[in-house]
């Protein structure tokens, strides 16, 4: 019959109209400023630099300025200048640190390749998305101080991932300690003792010496 398809259509819209008053499935709007959406744990926005603790962020940056992320970043939005001198990092090993570490958030597309290629777990993806500014140039160029956030914050936003990273760092520091202890003890005994074959750590490895990461 000619009108039957039209009547079916009217029935569906009527069902949705009535449904929107009682069935949550049929009223899906989230009124943003009052109700905030619960972000999934893997959500990623712009990167941030991980520092061991919150008290002295610049001092305990994990980043050693190896510039791997600068080379690998597709839109080339990271800019690093290394320091001339060295300073002890979390494990006591003397490491170079970045004097200038800029990320141009107007160019960065938060693709997290820098997180993937960073061997020191120094850069992670943040979950802050309310970062609109009026200034078009300098406010979008985040420098070292604006990027650094403590490891505790990292545990807040990515709990499971942070736990894995800390476990791995701890294991590596323990392995490096044994190697350092093993290398230190045989000095008095001349006979060369077979150095314990530590598992092949990741290439530029920082031997751990104390300084357990703040929980």
């Amino acid at each position, binding site marked *: *019959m*000619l009108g039957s398809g*039209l009547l079916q*259509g*009217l029935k*569906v*819209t*009527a069902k*949705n*109209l009535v449904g*929107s*008053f009682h069935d949550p499935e*049929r*009223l*899906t*709007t989230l*009124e943003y400023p009052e109700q905030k959406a619960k972000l999934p744990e893997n959500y990623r926005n712009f990167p941030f630099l991980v520092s061991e603790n919150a008290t002295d962020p610049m001092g305990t940056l994990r980043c050693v300025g190896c510039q791997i992320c600068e080379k690998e970043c597709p839109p080339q939005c990271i800019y690093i200048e290394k320091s001339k001198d060295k300073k002890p990092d979390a494990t006591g090993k003397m490491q170079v640190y970045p004097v200038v570490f800029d990320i141009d958030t107007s160019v960065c597309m938060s693709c997290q390749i820098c997180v993937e290629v960073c061997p020191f777990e120094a850069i992670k993806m943040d979950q802050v998305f309310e970062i609109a500014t009026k200034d078009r140039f300098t406010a979008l160029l985040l420098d070292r101080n604006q990027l650094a956030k403590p490891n505790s914050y990292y545990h807040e936003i990515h709990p499971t991932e942070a736990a894995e990273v800390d476990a791995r760092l701890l294991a590596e520091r323990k392995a490096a300690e044994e190697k350092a202890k093993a290398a230190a003890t045989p000095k008095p005994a001349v006979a060369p003792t077979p150095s314990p074959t530590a598992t092949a750590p990741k290439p530029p490895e920082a031997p751990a010496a104390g300084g357990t990461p703040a929980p």
Partner: protein
Amino acid sequence: MIGATSFSPLLLAAGAGADSFLERLPLVIRDTVAGVFPAPLQWLVGSTLSIVAIVAIFGGIFAGLTLVERKMLGRIQNRPGPNRTGPMGLLQPIADGIKALTKEDIVPRSADHLLHYLAPVALLAFSILTFAVIPFGRNLVPLELDAAVLYFFAAGAASELAIFMAGWASRNKFSLLAAMRALAQLISYELPLLLSFVPIIMLAGTLSMTGIIDAQAGWQLGFIPRWYIFTPWGFAAFVIFLIAALAESNRSPFDLPEAESELIAGHLTEYSGFKYALFFMAEYFGMIALSGMAITLFLGGWRAPLPFLEFIPSYAWFGAKLLVLLLFFIWIRGTFPRLRIDQLTRLAWKFLVPLALVNLGTAAFWSLTSGWSGALQLVRWALTIAMVIGPFVLLGRGLSGTHRPRTYRYA
């Protein structure tokens, strides 16, 4: 609302609740206001009072309607609709009004300035003129005309002129295309609109609105009101009238003149600011007027549907029926896609006009056989229903042609 010049006492005695205080309220207001002025001016004051009342009340209904439409469309689409301005979005119409007023009114340099300015004014004028004859309540008949129905459609017919002026004056390709489409659509739907209520004139025997409403007085079998919609030919005429009314007021399946997806905003492309709001208001006034007409012709005007509900004042019934019809218009807008211009005109000429003509025959048969009673009554009903359904199915098959949901093979 009570400037009725020839105030016939017949009206007063008709309904039981006729003399309740609320019923006579409009008359009391008119007499008190007119009483202040000297005698010769009283008629003039009465008329201006009814004009002011119509424009105020229906301006308010227009504002409310824009909000109701957006909220109902929102709810159909699983979203709450405007709720930021005012408690439940109630101040949204005011916000829209202010926005329309403050928006810059851009007139393209190559436009025909005089016509560009006149188009919205003419369209709004003609659509407000049609409110002069609609009986809103027992004592709320603005103008008692003998040929009121003809006046209504005469005033409505000139709106095509205004839309053409808008389309032509904007000097814009899309507006020109839209003006051509609008003319084709309005002219081809004028015929089914007029033809659909001719049987009612035939049965009611008069062209005046109050006459038609009186013809629909009384109840069958105690509780079914004697409205024309409850007769088979009346229902068919009502459906044709609604489809044609949708097309006349450029509403949903027929909003071709301002089809967003093809002609951007059609003949309204070059309008902005308050002129655009005027076009918008004219469209809504047209829709309200046509629904008022449908109520008067088919749903018994301001009559109560059940005898024991007589105590509710008549204009409340008119408002309720108006609300139901307007919600139905919005419901249709939320559901159907748009027709193409040639399908639209084919629907008018090959489907609605023949159906309306056949409906004339059915109504004639219905009025001739009004004398039958008892068993013949059933035969009469059956025959009329057959005379309505038959052509509908035949013409329907011709119209839909090869359009049928298809089955698909799988590889």
